[in-house]
């Protein structure tokens, strides 16, 4: 798929500020209990969850566990995509029953990824509460799912792509808006 670069929508500094603000909002509404846990959705939700955990460590004065979710088995488009997505392991450091989980992903779009992540989580246990934090909310939901913490809401068209690049994965921090050709 070819795509044309349209705009730089977030710089490295703006990503940093957005994460600081999301962390502040989480700290304001979630008490510092040992029930709290961050879970990043592969791929780019994972480094975002780790960064949030670092910032929250300063606010809470303690380490927060960070889990990893690979939602491939739970997708609803398995036979429509090719080639097969590479499956990696999910890693949840603790029993999640009774915990407060902040799910972290880079972009919230149709909501289908989050639906799959929720199905995956409940197969591991029964959390008390699940909240959703995303770096970018680009609209166009296909399911009744909303984020509790949003770094930046970016209005988009359906033929556009929001490309989040993170230094841990892509070598640099920025968010681009692309247009499909």
């Amino acid at each position, binding site marked *: 798929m070819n795509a044309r670069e349209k705009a730089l929508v977030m710089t490295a500094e703006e990503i940093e500020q957005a994460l600081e603000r999301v962390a502040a909002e989480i700290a304001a509404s979630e008490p510092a209990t040992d029930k709290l846990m961050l879970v990043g959705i592969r791929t780019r939700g994972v480094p975002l969850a780790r960064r949030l955990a670092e910032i929250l460590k300063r606010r809470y004065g303690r380490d927060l566990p960070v889990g990893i979710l*690979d939602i*491939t088995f739970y997708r609803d488009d398995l*036979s*429509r995509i090719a*080639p097969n997505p*590479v*499956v990696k*392991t999910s890693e949840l450091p603790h029993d999640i029953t009774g915990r407060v989980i902040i799910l972290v992903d880079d972009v919230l779009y149709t909501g289908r990824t989050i639906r799959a992540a929720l199905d995956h989580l409940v*197969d591991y246990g029964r959390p008390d509460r699940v909240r959703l934090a995303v770096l970018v909310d680009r609209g166009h939901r296909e399911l009744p799912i909303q984020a509790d913490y949003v770094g930046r809401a970016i209005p988009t068209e359906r033929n556009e792509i929001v490309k989040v690049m993170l230094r841990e994965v892509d070598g640099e921090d920025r968010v681009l808006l692309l247009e499909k050709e």
Partner: protein
Amino acid sequence: MTRDFEGERRDLSARAEFSTAHPRARLKRKDLLGIRDLDPEEIRLILDTAEAFKQVSEREIKKVPTLRGRTVVNLFFEPSTRTRTSFELAAKRLSADTLNIATTTSSLMKGETLLDTVRTLQAMAVDALVVRHSMAGVPHQLARQLPIPVINAGDGAHEHPTQALLDAFTIRERKGRIAGLKVAIIGDLLHSRVARSNIYLLTKLGASVWVSGPQTLVPPYYEQLVPDGLFVTPRIEEALEGADVVMALRLQLERQQECFFPSLKEYALRFGLTRERLRWAKEEAIILHPGPMNRGIEIASDVADGPQALILDQVANGIAVRMAVLYLLMGGSSA
């Protein structure tokens, strides 16, 4: 920025963690009929995928919705408990429906041809077929006739690809690698599809495989089976010496009518895997057996129950490997 990110080295290792090991993550085929046709990348893809599935079997809810609404048929023309239940559990843990057909209860006993049975199943809109047959090549014939994935669960003395994959998975899990290891395969090589599939797989991934058994049970064509990495020796000690992995093959008692060796007692004495004989292998060598075991014949009981034996790990890993195969063959079918 306020957060300390520990320099470039950490940065690179973090990036490696997120890298895509298989840019084109797919098997290049509709069916899994043997290891011989697979290339090393496809083998690694199956093994890596199985790691994610192993985790599913360790959860309290041992099931993912991946193949919901699909039907997998186990068509077994030979008696089997282990392989059939393993495939059945693998399919069920992917949320597929399963149907087991054993020849003793099927219309094949009433004279229906193989192809008619399969066409009937196809008319019932099944999505994948797992086949075991005593004749080599039957799964291949079915695969040519059917548009759905066909998985060989053992055909005659030809191949048993998922057994070799689960053995490789078990070896890799314990030893961290396959390349450079010495693997000894001991026993009835003549009747063993397990040995053949393992030889193909392990040599493709860079292990050196030493095989030994009674000379009547070592097929003459073995010298030319693979281009590289296979060594045949009549001396079991030579095969075992310095081995990282020792695989005992099941003596197929049901296939020994032709007097390949004088007696079971003599076989056990000369080729049985005993603790004493195992001293030739490395101290940390692991012991594998595809099951079911003839205790006291090809493997001594204290070896089978000893700390080096991974026979039950093999069973557990078999489910994960078969889940991976079903997932990879049934996942991206509209590609």
